[in-house]
């Protein structure tokens, strides 16, 4: 049944439909209406769960880790400062192989203080062993929450995942969302019952000390889990489609790339605007496409390698900056493209930080620049877009 709701409410409905059992909640703009809505669901009895009002994000994740170890399906949500405060226990959750699902409302890191969209907080967690699913609209937020639980809890995976929702552009934007039927979701996502869990009467220590001669094998096993997650996600999304009649383009959502000469690679809500821009440019005769990173982890390595082998130019838009040689997404996409037998010209555009609006006009100009660059090569490989003081005008 379709109704108009914010991305935050779409998250809350996704969690309710997934029958989360223990919810640890600590508020942070712009995530608060998720934990508020969940509090209502629990209070009204619509969701049979224990709601733990923790005193920090670090404790939110620690509480989920403990509850998940005891066999409960858990959930939490956070953003920017809260996500980075969790960094230690994010790594703990993946090391403990716990399929916790969390929503991160992607928001800029302070200082400067900013409550608006930016992917730096999410990108900074790429090494934690968490799957990272960037969404472009509220329907995808709801659906991916349910899909994530099923992928994470699969036997060969058993790793946590974060659903990433752009601050305000999704979290607080109301748009039509279909809320699936609970029975259908139950048929798709059975109750969580792990093989191993902490339970009274069973003397087992969870998370023991391991000597150097045994640590690597545990980390290798976790790597296998992330590798398995790649294929498992695609299979689970197809199962979801067979039941609910929709999908969101797998791990690398390619739009009109089949015959594209120039492709824009990006993630999150900007990709939705980019779809419009691709159609507009195509209508004027240029062969452009969009490759939307849905999953930054597991990274769609093979998909990028294949795409790179048949396009002239790849523009990679990073909505974050991580003080490396270039944006994080650009670096990883370029690495994947490097091993392709034909290497496209590649350029990195840093745009939309701290909530700066990425308008259709800006995207048109990025495509135009990339079409030139893919013919003549780029002077410098990384360009910051729409920065006052830089010569080029984008607006």
């Amino acid at each position: 049944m379709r109704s108009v709701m914010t991305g935050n409410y779409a998250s809350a409905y996704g969690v309710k439909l997934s029958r989360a059992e223990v919810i640890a909640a600590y508020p942070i703009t712009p995530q608060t209406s998720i934990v508020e809505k969940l509090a209502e669901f629990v209070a009204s009895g619509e969701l049979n769960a224990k709601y733990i009002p923790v005193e920090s994000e670090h404790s939110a994740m620690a509480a989920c880790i403990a509850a998940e170890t005891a066999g409960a399906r858990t959930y939490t949500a956070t953003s920017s400062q809260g996500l980075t405060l969790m960094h230690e226990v994010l790594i703990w959750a993946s090391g403990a192989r716990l399929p916790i699902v969390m929503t991160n409302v992607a928001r800029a890191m302070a200082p400067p203080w900013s409550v608006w969209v930016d992917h730096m907080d999410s990108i900074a967690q790429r090494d934690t062993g968490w799957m990272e699913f960037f969404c472009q609209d509220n329907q995808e937020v709801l659906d991916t929450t349910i899909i994530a639980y099923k992928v994470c809890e699969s036997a060969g995976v058993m790793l946590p995942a974060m659903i990433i929702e752009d601050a305000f552009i999704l979290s607080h934007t109301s748009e039509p969302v279909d809320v699936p039927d609970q029975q259908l979701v139950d048929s798709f996502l059975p109750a969580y019952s792990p093989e191993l869990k902490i339970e009274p009467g069973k003397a087992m220590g969870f998370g023991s000390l391991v000597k150097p001669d045994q640590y690597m094998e545990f980390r290798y096993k976790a790597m296998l889990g992330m590798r398995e997650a790649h294929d498992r996600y695609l299979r689970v999304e197809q199962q979801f489609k067979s039941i609910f009649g929709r999908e969101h383009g797998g791990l690398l959502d390619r739009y009109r790339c089949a015959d594209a000469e120039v492709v824009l690679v990006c993630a999150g809500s900007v990709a939705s605007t980019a779809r419009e821009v691709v159609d507009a440019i195509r209508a004027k005769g240029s062969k452009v496409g969009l490759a939307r990173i849905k999953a930054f982890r597991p990274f769609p390595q093979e998909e990028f390698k294949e795409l790179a082998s048949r396009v002239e130019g790849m523009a990679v838009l990073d909505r974050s900056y991580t003080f490396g040689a270039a944006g994080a997404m650009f670096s990883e996409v370029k690495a994947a493209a490097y091993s392709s037998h034909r290497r496209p010209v590649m350029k990195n555009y840093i745009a939309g930080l701290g909530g700066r609006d990425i308008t259709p006009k800006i995207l048109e100009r990025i495509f135009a620049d990339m079409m030139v660059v893919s013919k003549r090569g780029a002077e410098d490989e990384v360009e910051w877009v729409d920065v006052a003081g830089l010569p080029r005008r984008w607006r």
Partner: protein
Amino acid sequence: MTKSYEEIPLTPISDSPSTITITGLWRVMRPVVDPKKCKKCTVCWKFCPDAAIKLVDGVPLIDLQYCKGCGICSFECPAKCIVMVKEGEK
């Protein structure tokens, strides 16, 4: 011996008793009990940090595999029937 990644659980879950670690090897001094003097007050059993003392008819039997030789039993024994002896000496 390092276990293969296929043999180990998803994350380290410990379920085998710590008795595989023979802490008795740590000793420098060893408690020696004189059963005749023992008043069966169980103080030694009570205060042993490693639960390495078994009471046989109330008299302490020290499990030398695990006793670390801390000397608490000897110090606390009201009857002074436990003497600390240098390891290796009779």
